[in-house]
């Protein structure tokens, strides 16, 4: 451990025999050999990982890339001995230094986890004990593993929190998780993962739940710390751009097997395996242009002319209303937040502040911004779920929210949402058929036979098979669920579809498929889309026009090319810079 680790773009040849030959014995931190992991299920053992081999050296970052269900997290959890209770190492070895982690006792494994192995888990919102102070959650690991005495632990904890860039760490240590933002929680989790100065850190999608700008800061911090400490990192991610940017070696997993591995640059520039190629093709990045099919509509010229209007007091122009399906004029939304003391007054919080935007019929407008920028509140007002405090929203020339209950129901037919999380936006007890049929029933669409015919038509449009109509959401993949959500939204032939982070929860390959689907449906049905997203790469693929929101205001707007090629504000530039994988494009 004496020599400084040089960042060797460690070659990982296919055969282990080769690998052994050029090992410097003390340099290899982790060697996984022919690992197979099985899960006991009602239908017998299911193999989640088969014959996986990889090596991680001191100071090196190895990224495992793959879509969900590819076995990448299972592999990482097997290394940490944290497989779910029905999972076990069936074959192969996990050599950590000179111990086989698949064979050591439970106590020994617990001790190793507390001292030599670290974990930075995926979702900062669910990975901290909600009823325990942050500091205490770091203290306990230090104390139980004999790294610090009960008395000294807190001092060390504050140092660790300070080290990961948590401001005012001393005070923060005595707060609870709910008092932390997502980014702060993730910093705390990194401090926790590195608290014992482990030789190997497993980072499982450490930032996929965070905004891009926050993501970048946290990844930089993590990279800086692990480099200083010489920690080997096993990075689990579905994001190729991130892997390219952060790892020395990339390991691609598909359906439980490692299909390709090698130096990051090599794998990404000259992928060998078909799956890697597909992954590369699907990856949204700054280089990817709008989906061709959308371009082919030939509407662009017309749109470009029409779009000159907003911003240049188009409000006075009576004809403008006909061109725009939706017209938002100077809309603000103020929420009052209840005070905390016995006598304290409520405070006002302005979520959306004087926003104007126009959505031309048949086009796609994207609103981007980080969480808290007010973009979702704006979408909710356009959906007529929230009422604007001031300002007006007109839909097809008619004021939204002005009519009675009947008008509201009629409006709901014409405007439909697709929400972010396909796992929670579908009723788990409804079959796919019933989920798609529900809006038809609610709006008294035809008889049972007519509804069945319509549901089957919709299923075909979103490429769901008839057999899948009988299934339940739990039996579907994330992409399939989102297809169901889209079919449901389209059931009533709406004119406007509001997609609130509709593809953010999906893997890149699936994401690309869903975006293709949306673009195709737009072509076919003449739909208008409002896309709410934090993902700029997605915007470039699908949108005609983009608005950038920050703290409730629109800070920039223009066509996609304008905004992406010459961003006018620092905020937009920061958002663009924060997209992982810029290097990847340079390499391509």
């Amino acid at each position, binding site marked *: 451990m004496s020599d400084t680790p040089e960042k060797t773009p460690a070659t990982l040849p296919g055969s282990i025999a080769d690998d052994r030959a050029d090992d410097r014995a003390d340099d290899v931190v982790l060697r996984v050999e022919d690992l197979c992991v099985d899960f006991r299920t009602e239908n017998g053992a299911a193999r989640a990982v088969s014959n996986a081999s990889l090596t991680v050296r001191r100071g090196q970052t190895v990224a495992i890339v793959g879509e969900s269900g590819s076995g990448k997290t299972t592999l990482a959890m097997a290394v*940490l001995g*944290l497989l*779910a209770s029905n999972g076990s190492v069936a074959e192969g070895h996990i050599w950590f230094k000179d111990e086989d982690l698949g064979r050591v006792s439970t106590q020994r494994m*617990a*001790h*190793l*986890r*507390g*001292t030599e*192995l*670290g*974990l930075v*888990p*995926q*979702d900062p919102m*669910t*990975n*901290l*004990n*909600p*009823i*325990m102070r942050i500091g205490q*959650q770091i203290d*306990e*690991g230090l104390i*139980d*593993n004999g790294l610090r005495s009960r008395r000294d632990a807190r001092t060390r904890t504050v140092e660790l929190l300070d080290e990961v860039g948590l401001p005012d760490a001393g005070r923060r240590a005595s707060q*609870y998780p*709910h008092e932390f933002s997502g980014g702060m929680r993730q910093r705390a*989790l990194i401090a*926790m*993962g590195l*608290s*014992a100065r482990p030789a190997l850190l497993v980072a499982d999608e450490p930032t996929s739940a965070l905004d891009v700008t926050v993501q970048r800061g946290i990844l930089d911090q993590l990279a800086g710390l692990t480099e200083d400490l010489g920690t080997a990192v096993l990075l689990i991610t579905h994001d190729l751009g991130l892997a390219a940017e952060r790892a020395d070696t990339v390991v691609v997993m598909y359906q439980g097997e490692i299909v390709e591995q090698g130096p990051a640059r090599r794998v990404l520039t000259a992928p060998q395996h078909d799956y890697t190629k597909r992954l590369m093709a699907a990856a949204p990045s700054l280089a990817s242009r709008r989906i061709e099919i959308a371009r082919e509509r030939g509407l662009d010229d017309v749109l470009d002319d029409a779009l000159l209007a907003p911003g240049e007091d188009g409000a006075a122009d009576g004809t403008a209303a006909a061109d725009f399906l939706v017209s938002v004029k100077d809309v603000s939304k103020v929420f009052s937040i209840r005070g*905390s*003391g*016995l006598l304290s007054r409520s405070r006002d919080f302005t979520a959306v502040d004087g926003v104007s935007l126009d959505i031309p019929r048949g086009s796609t407008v994207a609103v981007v911004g980080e969480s808290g920028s007010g973009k979702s509140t704006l979408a909710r007002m356009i959906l007529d779920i929230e009422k604007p405090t001031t300002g007006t929203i007109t839909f097809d020339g008619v004021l939204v929210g002005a009519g009675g209950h009947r008008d509201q129901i009629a409006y709901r037919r014409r405007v439909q949402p697709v929400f972010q999380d396909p796992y929670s936006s579908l009723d788990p007890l409804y079959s796919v058929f019933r989920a798609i049929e529900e809006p038809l029933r609610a709006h008294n669409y035809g008889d049972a036979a007519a509804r069945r015919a319509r549901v089957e038509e919709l299923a075909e449009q979103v490429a769901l098979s008839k057999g899948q109509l009988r299934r339940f959401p739990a039996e579907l993949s994330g992409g399939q669920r989102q297809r169901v959500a889209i079919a449901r939204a389209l059931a009533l032939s709406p004119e406007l579809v509001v997609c609130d982070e509709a593809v953010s929860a999906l893997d890149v390959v699936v994401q690309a498929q869903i975006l293709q689907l949306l673009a195709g449906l737009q072509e076919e049905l003449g739909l208008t889309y409002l896309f709410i997203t934090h993902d700029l790469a997605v915007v470039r693929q699908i949108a005609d026009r983009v608005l950038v929101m920050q703290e409730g205001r629109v800070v920039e707007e223009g066509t996609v090319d304008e905004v992406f090629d010459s961003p006018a504000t620092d905020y937009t530039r920061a958002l663009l810079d924060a997209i992982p994988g810029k290097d990847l494009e340079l390499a391509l």
Partner: protein
Amino acid sequence: MIRLIVQRLLLLIPLLLGLSVLLFAWVRALPGGPATALLGERATPEAIARINTLYGFDQPLYIQYFKYLTRLLQGDFGVSTRTARPVLDEFITRFPATIELTVVALIIAIGIGIPLGYVAARRAGSIIDHSSVVVSLIGVTVPVFFLAFILKYVFAVELGWFPSTGRQDPTINATHPTNFYVLDGILTGEWDAAWDALMHLVLPGIALGTIPLAIVARMTRAAVSEVQNADYVRTARAKGIKPARLRGDHILKNSMLPVLTTIGLQVGLLLSGAVLTETVFAFAGIGSFLAEAVFNADYPVMQGFVLLIAVVYALVNLFVDVSYGLIDPRLRRQQ
């Protein structure tokens, strides 16, 4: 926290006012009116007229209600027609017995229910898990009075391990400064009296504690099953902390919120007086007294006890709500 307590205490006012109106209206709506209720159906018209004048039943209803309310506020809940003692005195004398019984029942329910539920969840599918399901089902389905009779017959009558009725052996000449018999015995140093009172609590305590035990065990099992698979528990394991800390601070403590709600509701029910159990064991708590009041048409006792039990129930639930904040910091801020 203080805000919550103040708010909840203020909410008690409309609650109790509403209840007092209901109770007032109930007695006035009895067939033949309140005088008949007091004197019985064979009362002479003269006697009824006398009572009506004496108690003001001939006055307009709003004046009667106002007087009733004024007396309530002064702590005057009326006089028992059966014992001729003030209702409040009767309540205060008997309530400690019910509290003692409730405490014993709770100790049994929590002391067995939580560990049972925890082990069942941690070893899901094991024999312990399956038997806990059976025990819970029996606990919930067997009627209390049946269980009480069986316990009394087997352990008191046949085996003679425990006394069958009452709160204390009448041959023991004990002093009762607080009316909590076990506590009294300890305070006065009359150990035999304390022990005897405790023995009298065992069988009714088991009978009364069985249903809460079953419910607490089921709730604990469900909560622990969920929490043990939570991400933060896995993260805690990744830190290599000691198993005892993992079980206590991370799994059990996080599981306790729903269980606490259940316990709170059960405490309220137990304190409302276990009519059946107290009757079977001739245990002089508020439950058996209320039952006798019903049999004897003792309306002042029924009215007063219902109101007092409502106050107790509300206070217990307030206490439970406050204790959420002690466990869960997120609720502390909302509170």
